[in-house]
């Protein structure tokens, strides 16, 4: 038996279930539909990796072995994920690379699309504007739903002329139907046909499905770029970085004069404006020495009015994350973060970073936030 998954939320008036009204199967069927929409169709869109070509004077992407990370938390209902990458253009002969994807624990390829670590993937010709997505499909039914440490790691091994990865993206695939009785977060549609008895197990499952849609659904906000073994200094590194041990901005590889970037998103604000959201901050970084570093993220709720950010009453909340020295190895550090929601939007920025000091470098590959509703 299976329960269909609609692709739209369903309308409903509460007057249909007020005291004294007869219980009809339609009201219960709406519960089935809405649960199926939430847990089977409206699934996670994980963050994305974008790796533009490096500015002049920096280590170039061409021929540089590199990696990219997409943190991800499986939603309770999803079975399959669509993984896609795009490559930079190039006119060089023998411009190819292999791409290997390290899958989260429990995931298995249905079709790797050539992202197997051995297939030579050639760069599209320079000047071609049509993107060429290389797409794979992955069975994630064996992954742990709600885990906060899963990640998709793309390892790119180019030839001397391989131009490298331009973009990587991960999307959970909506379902056509749920398998009833297999532990999937759904309600049995057949159980609420007219004339059937509704049993307690079914009503208990309503609350389990509500929780799956509330706490199992996690927003993914991710700024992810390049990581490599390149160990050049602050002026030529291809990574986002900071050298000085004093608190200051990250070098985002932008042109001089550019304001540090900030990003925006719409928070869920499930419990009203006064109850902040629980998130997990994840930072992928490397320090060239054993000296610990630090990065501080700034969150503020508010809205954009006439082209300018207007903060809400709760003000800026800063979350400082200590980055232990890694002596040249890339590592993750995770820390809980509380984000205010007393505005329709949230603004996220890197407030400041502290590097290891002169001649050494803090490199950053990914700054992600994944909702961690309890």
């Amino acid at each position: 038996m299976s329960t269909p998954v609609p692709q739209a939320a369903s309308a409903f008036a509460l007057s249909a279930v007020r005291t004294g009204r007869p219980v009809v199967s339609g009201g219960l069927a709406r519960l089935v539909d809405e649960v199926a929409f939430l847990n089977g169709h409206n699934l996670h869109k994980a963050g994305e990796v974008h790796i533009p070509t490096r500015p002049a004077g920096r280590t170039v992407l061409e021929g540089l072995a590199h990696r990219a990370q997409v943190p991800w938390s499986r939603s309770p209902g999803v079975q399959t994920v669509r993984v896609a990458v795009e490559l930079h253009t190039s006119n060089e002969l023998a411009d190819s690379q292999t791409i290997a994807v390290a899958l989260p624990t429990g995931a298995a390829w249905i079709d790797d699309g050539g992202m197997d670590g051995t297939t030579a993937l050639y760069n599209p010709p320079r000047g071609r504007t049509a993107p060429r997505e290389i797409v794979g499909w992955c069975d994630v039914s064996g992954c742990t739903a709600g885990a906060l440490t899963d990640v998709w790691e793309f390892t790119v091994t180019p030839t001397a002329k391989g131009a490298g990865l331009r973009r990587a993206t991960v999307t959970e695939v909506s379902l056509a139907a749920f398998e009833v009785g297999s532990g999937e977060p759904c309600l049995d549609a057949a159980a609420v046909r007219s004339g059937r008895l509704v049993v307690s197990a079914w009503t208990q499952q309503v609350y389990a499905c509500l929780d799956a849609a509330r706490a199992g659904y996690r927003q993914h906000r991710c700024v992810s770029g390049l990581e490599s073994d390149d160990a050049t200094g602050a002026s030529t590194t291809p990574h986002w970085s900071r050298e000085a041990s004093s608190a200051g901005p990250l070098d985002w590889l932008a042109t001089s004069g550019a304001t540090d970037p900030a990003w925006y998103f719409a928070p869920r604000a499930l419990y009203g404006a006064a109850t902040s959201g629980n998130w997990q901050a994840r930072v992928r970084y490397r320090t060239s020495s054993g000296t610990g570093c630090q990065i501080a993220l700034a969150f503020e709720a508010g809205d954009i009015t006439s082209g300018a950010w207007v903060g809400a009453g709760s003000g800026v909340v800063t979350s400082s994350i200590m980055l232990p020295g890694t002596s040249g190895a890339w590592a993750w550090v995770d820390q809980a973060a509380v984000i205010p929601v007393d505005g329709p939007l949230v603004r996220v920025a890197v407030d400041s970073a502290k590097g290891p000091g002169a001649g050494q470098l803090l490199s950053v590959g990914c700054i992600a936030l994944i909702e961690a509703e309890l």
Partner: protein
Amino acid sequence: MSTGERIAAVYIPTPPSASGHMPDGAPLDSGSVMIAHSNLSHLSERNVRLVGHMPLAGEITLDSTFTVPWGEAIDVAYDVASDDPANGRMGTIPWSPGCAESFGPLVLSATRIGTAPAGYYPRKVRVVVQGYKSSETIGGNDTRMYIMAALTTGPDTPLRSGLYVTGYAQRTAATPGARTFVLDLDVAAPVRPSASWRSRGSGLEAPANTTLSPAWVWVGWYSNTVSVPDRVESVSVFEVYQ
């Protein structure tokens, strides 16, 4: 707006499902059912997806967004008749790397009801670009900066893909300075599934494929500055429930 009525615009906490809240024989009271309906409606509205976020490179000029990109393009040519972003004709730029980025796909989810035409409409997708307009004038004319966005039916550029909807914002040298551009991509019509994706492993009773409505978000920029560049500094793409 939620399509389903809510008791209040908040999620009302409920007992854990394993707590024996409704044992056999207990009445399924209207209050509990109302709370369940209200919570589901609230979640359908609020479970918006964040599509993509990235820093951008900074300076942009006519050379970097028009002259060089069109000069390099080998599979598309500039057509002045298609250069009218204010009216949805997105041919100002070739949408190549350096003057555009794409995000997605995301699977469109209908959570709004519309009447003209009647049906369920997908959530709006919002594009926010942090930028800066310079004060450069050329020959006494203000320079211009465009931010453009499009929601497409396929991964190809807005010049070749089907378009669900486009968006556009302009800033001139008459109003220089930092600007946070907001473009809402509002598909104000029902959409039909346009692709079939693998949604399960094999060997199960439920279908292994799903027909659905994937969409890609394209964000592009144009500047006709020459000596004092405009800047684009970050882009954020996400669904909104307002």
